[in-house]
């Protein structure tokens, strides 16, 4: 019974919004690049070719080459792993930590709630990208710290969301019943409440992914974290930017388009997932 409802829901969600199907296609393409980009790429992303500097898109180099003659298509493909990797790690860390903090705060109330609340308010008191810059500047200019900074600035969204959801469910009938059944407080939270808030949290995470990608790419665009010659979309856009004035558009348009595609894909997936798991929130 449950399966058929879920099946019907999936058909409904996809049928209603063909774009979700497109998003799944893009996601598969991105994941393919992230996993096998290195072997699928037509050229080595780091090999320079002095004879083919800044050549425009052609059949040999579909996306053209950059100032050092590196093939841009290969670099865009290989970069998928780093860009998606940084964003996914940050979101997973944020999700886990935010869920834990928010659930504890919402379930127990009292001083844990006050401490977590104050902590999140403090993070939110900063313009978030500025805080991320400050964190990377202070911790050191590495890829790991980009992930850490992105995790920290995303934390309040998960924590607050989890807190609210737990708070609503704390007094619900099934939770009361679990408590009456002789379960201790923590098992009730872990076994009965958290599984029920996971679906809306997943929607939140998926909607958040696009923002995490933008954030990490923004940091590397201004020269933080990822260092050349590592292929990464943000840094490639910033390297290509100096050739705008001379009209070599392909140097920044293709990596930028890859970023747009990835963010667009995750935003659409988030919307689709919301329609699927939580139809009431549809606006």
């Amino acid at each position, binding site marked *: 019974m449950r399966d058929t409802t879920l099946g019907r829901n999936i058909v409904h969600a996809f049928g209603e919004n063909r774009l979700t199907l497109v998003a799944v296609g893009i996601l598969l393409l991105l994941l393919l690049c992230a996993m096998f980009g290195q072997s699928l790429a037509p050229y080595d992303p780091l090999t320079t070719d002095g004879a083919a500097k800044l050549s425009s898109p052609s059949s040999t180099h579909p996306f053209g080459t950059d100032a050092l003659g590196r093939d841009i298509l290969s670099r865009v493909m290989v970069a998928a792993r780093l860009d998606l990797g940084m964003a996914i790690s940050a979101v997973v860390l944020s999700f886990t930590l935010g869920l834990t903090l928010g659930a504890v705060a919402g379930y127990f109330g009292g001083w844990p709630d006050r401490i977590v609340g104050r902590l999140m308010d*403090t993070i939110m008191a900063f313009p978030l990208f500025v805080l991320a810059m400050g964190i990377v500047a202070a911790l050191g200019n590495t890829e790991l710290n980009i992930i850490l900074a992105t995790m920290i600035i995303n934390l309040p969204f998960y924590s607050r969301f989890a807190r609210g959801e737990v708070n609503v469910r704390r007094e619900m009938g099934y939770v009361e019943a679990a408590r009456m059944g002789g379960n201790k407080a923590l098992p009730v939270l872990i076994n009965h409440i958290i599984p029920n808030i996971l679906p809306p949290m997943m929607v939140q995470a998926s909607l958040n992914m696009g923002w995490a990608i933008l954030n990490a*790419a923004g940091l590397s665009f*201004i020269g933080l974290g990822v260092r050349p010659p590592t292929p990464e979309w943000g840094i490639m856009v910033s390297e290509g930017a100096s050739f705008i004035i001379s009209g070599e558009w392909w140097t920044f348009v293709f990596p930028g388009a890859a970023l747009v595609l990835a963010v667009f894909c995750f935003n659409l997936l988030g919307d689709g997932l919301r329609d699927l798991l939580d139809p009431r929130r549809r606006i």
Partner: protein
Amino acid sequence: MSFVWKRLLGTVPSLAGVIVVTFLLSHALPGDPAAYFAGPAANAVSIAEVRAKLGLDQSLPLQFLHYLGDLARGDLGHSLTTGQPVVTDLLQRLPASMELTFFALVFAVAIAIPMGVWAATRPDSLVDHVCRATVSVAAAFPTFFVGLLLVYVFYFLLDLAPEPVGRLNEILYTVPPHVTGMYTLDSLIAGDWPVLAASLAQLVLPAISLGLFALAPIARITRAAMLQSLGSDFTRTARASGLKRGKILFTYAFRNALLPVSNVLGMVFSFLLGANVLIEQVYGWQGIGAYAVNAVLASDYAAVQGFVLMMAVLYVLLNLLVDLAGTLIDPRVRFEA
């Protein structure tokens, strides 16, 4: 009035949190600033000297007290790259950033609110779909990429926009006499029309790129809030009483939709202040964002710390302003607080 005081007091914990975090960012982290300041030729003795001079040999709480004392005197330390006090550097560049952010906000509000209202009056029409598509596309484009695309199209291809050389092409024009530090306002005060036109022309592309980023959340919330107030009982009553369409739309529905819109402005400011950094980088805009990027890359800690602190304080104050504006829009907020 008591609400205003309460809200003012409410900023105290935020500001305290901001100060503690900026202190921790610079003092409680790995790496030895003393060794850094002492330079590459330093030995153990000179590093110790520098450490004592910077007060880094004291306990963390004592260092924090010193930090508070410095802040109270408006001392954010000296920048390594410019050699000037960080406060002077920041205040010198702040007007440029404010000018850019202000124009971006005006652009975003001027497009997003009419678009949201229009879409809400005709749900599921072509306008609504266009609005929705614009919102999701605008949300997916990285600000810096939009900035570069606009430069490519409007400067390189169409030659409509001036060269992206910052706030004013100083080869062709002279900077207006300093009053506010904002070139548009200063040239207006000086009555220097060519400079006003030139500085406005320089502003158009960066303000649009930055504003596009803020457009999506404002348009979405306007649409949702308008849909809600158009569907509410008081609108139905107004319609039943035979009031004119414009009166229903603006006096009844829009005025009630304003509060959620003003509330989302807090988040919009967070976006704008962050994205400002990226746009200043793209357009060579000499604001505090570009200054901070250079400082981060040069490991100029005092400057970065000063920048983060100033942005956070600015953001807390903007949020305060948004909340106070909210009480003007909807007096009920005062009693709820």
